[in-house]
């Protein structure tokens, strides 16, 4: 017990003296939440589009005006086609609507009238917005114009209610999801260095020549970084809820509990990498590609898991952030859903335990791996 305490004390001092761990735990979350808050936006946004009207009828002039009044569109009026082409090429406008000169004549006759909508296919998302905004504004205008009589009302009227996130604000799930990224960084990247460092600097050899046992070494790494991770988690939650006003509907107790399990799993991955590779540079590279990138790409945070190819959908099952992202999003937005909590917690606990056992098995009291047979004999002697 005294040995374990001494190792934990030593590790905490090292953490406090190493600015990079403090930066990863407390500065990085701040920066990443800022980026997710202001840099990434998956919502519908205001687009700028051009309008050219070739129909001189006063009724159509009101259509041009409705483009100007829409809160989703910034409209710029153009007189000739050439300018529109130029503006799209320079990305000054994201698309354009051209009203042909027979527009009102056709409508008045009760015929189908054409509206030319030009979109910029190099930005597919925005092109979709331009198209749907233009159609929505034109249809809306039609029902209030004098041609309204010629429009048949649709047979079905869909009433839309968006649950959990009525404003469809993507920040509400991306920002909490960023907690998963920070926890992964602390859990995997930071710890991937710590055992390798002891090997590189020769301190492991000195430790092994004292009465230190593998369990001391393993817990001496797990506990300090668990504390650091939990402190960083609390700071993250504070940033999300208090500073950035992300609504939180779940239970803080549950959040801490399941986050603790997730951290435990991540520490296991990082320490496994570190004790297997024994080289800081290699370990950090592996941690980056095996720990951090999957957390970003395969956790469902950025790309929905059910739209991935089947193989990757199965692959996500062994990636701890997947369970955590799913939990965090539901805890923040939907509040306590016990079945989700339980399922994710169980998976995280199983993975965490497996990794812990692996770390323990990889930690030897010697400089080389002892063959299994001799290992069991040793325990019998103890």
């Amino acid at each position, binding site marked *: 017990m005294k040995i374990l305490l001494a*190792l934990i004390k030593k590790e905490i001092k090292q953490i406090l003296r190493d600015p990079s761990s403090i930066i990863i735990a407390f500065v990085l979350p701040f920066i990443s939440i800022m980026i997710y808050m202001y840099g990434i936006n998956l919502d519908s946004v205001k687009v700028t589009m051009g309008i050219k009207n070739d129909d001189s009828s006063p009724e159509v002039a009101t259509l041009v005006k409705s483009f100007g009044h829409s809160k989703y569109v910034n409209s710029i009026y153009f007189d000739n086609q050439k300018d529109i082409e130029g503006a799209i090429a320079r990305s000054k406008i994201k698309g354009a609507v051209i009203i042909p000169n027979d527009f009102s004549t056709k409508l008045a006759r009760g015929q189908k009238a054409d509206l030319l909508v030009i979109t910029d296919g190099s930005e597919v998302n925005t092109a979709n917005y331009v198209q749907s905004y233009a159609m929505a504004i034109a249809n809306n205008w039609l029902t209030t114009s004098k041609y309204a009589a010629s429009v048949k009302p649709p047979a079905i009227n869909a009433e839309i209610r968006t649950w959990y996130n009525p404003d469809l604000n993507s920040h509400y799930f991306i920002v909490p999801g960023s907690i998963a990224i920070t926890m992964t960084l602390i859990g995997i990247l930071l710890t991937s260095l710590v055992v390798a460092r002891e090997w590189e600097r020769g301190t492991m*050899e000195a430790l092994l020549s004292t009465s230190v046992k593998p369990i001391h070494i393993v817990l001496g790494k797990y506990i300090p970084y668990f504390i650091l991770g939990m402190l960083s988690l609390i700071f993250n939650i504070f940033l999300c809820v208090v500073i950035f006003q992300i609504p939180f509907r779940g239970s803080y107790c549950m959040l801490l509990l399941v986050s603790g399990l997730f951290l435990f799993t991540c520490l296991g991955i990082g320490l496994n990498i570190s004790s297997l590779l024994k080289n800081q540079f290699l370990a950090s590279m592996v941690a980056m590609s095996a720990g951090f990138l999957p957390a970003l790409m395969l956790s469902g945070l950025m790309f929905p898991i059910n739209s991935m190819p089947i193989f990757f959908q199965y692959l996500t099952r062994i990636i701890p952030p997947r369970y955590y992202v799913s939990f965090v999003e539901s805890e923040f937005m939907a509040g306590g859903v016990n079945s989700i909590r339980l399922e994710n917690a169980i998976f995280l606990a199983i993975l965490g335990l497996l990794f812990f056992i692996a770390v323990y098995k990889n930690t030897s009291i010697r400089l080389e791996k002892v063959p299994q047979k001799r290992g069991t004999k040793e325990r019998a002697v103890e």
Partner: protein
Amino acid sequence: MYTVEIKNLTKNFGSIIALNNLSLNIEKGKITGLIGADGAGKTTLLRMIIGLLTPDKGEISTLGFNPVTQKNELTPHIGYMPQKFGLYEDLTVIENLTLYADLKNVPHVFDRMLEFTTLAPFQDRLAGALSGGMKQKLGLACTLLGNPDFLLLDEPSVGVDPISRRDLMKMVREMINPQTTVLWSTAYLDEAHSFDTSVVIDKGKVIYEGKPHDLAPTPQEFENKVIDLMGGYKQEPSKIAENYTLREDIKDCTVEADNLEKKYGNFYAVKNNSFCIKKGEIFGLLGPNGAGKSTSFKMMCGLAKPTNGTARIMGIDITKDPEKARSNLGYMAQKFSLYGSLTVKENLEFFASAYGIKFKNRADKVREIIEVFGLKDYANQKSEELPLGLKQRLSMACALIHNPPVLFLDEPTSGVDVLTRRDFWNHITSLAKKGVTILVTTHFMDEAEYCDRISLFYKGETISLGTPGELKNKAKAATMEETFITLIKESEGK
């Protein structure tokens, strides 16, 4: 009474045989020196004695325990200092001591230890900020905690100056009790000569076991005898020197330091250092760790900017035209700056291009150098896989690839065994005879004897300058080591 009994010990790492059917007994209460070339198996043997490695074949008994099955019972009785001292560089002196005291379950009483190691004033300094000599003392202090019955030190004096080495020896002798056994692996044969017993191992086998005085009465003869045991060193004319052609336009004063000074804040790392080295001279820069030798070196090859004064290489001012001045010198850095993941040949090709050898001549030059330096068998091997002696030779090859008239060597023999050192100095003295000017730093005082002139450096200043004979006369000492210690102590007294 034996502390360690080893019977028919064998250990292989892949296809490499580290220890080959080795049998050895180590007497209780004695200091035993473990001597051997690089890769002879010294570290492996130490590690196996305390159970950090397990034998493939054979038996070990340490203090009556079997290190394979009873490591947990054994460890409380031993103190082991690995090669890198095992210190946490981001912990302070006192924190390192506290940590190891807790790990060994002994009370936090460090007063005597701190006083003895003269580390008391530096208690709160980070271990990483200590000088080499002080780190080594702290490492030893941590190892000595809990008064172990058996002390194992793995090359504790590599890269450490003679004064620190002597202090270390004194510390060990005074801190242990008569029953304590010490096993001390070393590359310094004068050190080994002063021990009670010596064990020489070569290629994984014991080739001598007995009192050093039985082998030879003086450290110098002891060194010769040990070399003979290892198969002997035959001095052959240096092929490297034979192959070297000196440029014609050589000035008489090839390397000149003119009031060289480097100041960090209020601290003078180097203070008005002036000297002139003549063509073909071997000039030694000696001094304790942290005296400013490396700083002087860096300034003289233009890697650090002097705060005052300048240096001239072949008459070219290093501060005004560093590139041109540098093209006249070959530099061999401490720890051999080689690219570990490149092969021997690729390293040479890189240095050839870095020194501006034209592309069409490069392949020929590299082939020639590989031939002359005897690197042919290793040409396609990664340089990180080479033994230390070969790394050193490759590093010298890289420094000489552009035929420079001046050669700078910064602790070129640190950690290298005695045979390789002999061979290395054979090449260096032969090159000097051909007219190459050589500036060298070293911690081996016997190597200082090879120098034509020596500048003794202390606290940033030259305290003595002259031939080895002149310095010995000045200090009224018989050996260079005594000379070194006397002159430094004298200067401290002033």
